[in-house]
């Protein structure tokens, strides 16, 4: 499975929000810290529901958090 075609800036957003930890984000969206880590590293693409929850936590639109990379997806 490896890296997915969906890139994200969750780490940047966390750090910009007063160094929010992965555990804090995980608690707010109802997943484990390991799942947040897998999403951040691009190893796991979250469901739409979780993606929207993440965007809501940071108060930004979904497309600001996640970007779809066409070139990667075609491989």
């Amino acid at each position, binding site marked *: *499975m490896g890296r997915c075609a969906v890139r994200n800036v969750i780490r940047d957003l966390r750090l910009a929000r007063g160094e929010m930890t992965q555990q804090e984000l995980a608690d707010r969206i109802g*997943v*484990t810290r390991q*799942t947040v*880590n*897998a999403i951040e590293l691009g*190893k796991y693409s979250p469901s739409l529901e979780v993606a929207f929850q993440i965007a809501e936590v940071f108060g930004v639109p979904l497309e600001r958090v996640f970007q779809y990379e066409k070139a990667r997806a075609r491989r």
Partner: protein
Amino acid sequence: MSFREKSAWISLILIVLVFGPYFGRVALALAGKTHVHAGTQFALITVFVLLEIVLHVAVAVRSPREARAARDEREDLIDLRATRTAFYVLLAGVLIAIFTLHFPVNVWMLSQFVLFSAVVAQLMRFSNQIRLFRRGW
């Protein structure tokens, strides 16, 4: 390491430690070198279940918050994917068990084979879970 991953490790190690030596003995019994009592299988399954409970409780006591939390979507997907692989292993075992009925096998041998299929299927399930947890997905 998450509670689900610890749980998968516990089950995998227990399967190897409890059923590994047992099936070694069964293999020797099939070769006529030793004898395995009919009740051993039931006793072993009971010991396995009790050890699973004790070790899972011990881990849960150490991290109660994680243990109480519901599975998240990634953990659900990992479990589904690992269980799918195990299903095919178990299905193959069942089909082979049915096939062996056409040969001179007794109930004891058949029960050993069915248990062996279930154990291998569980081994596949937990090892796949651990692999997916380690990799992220």
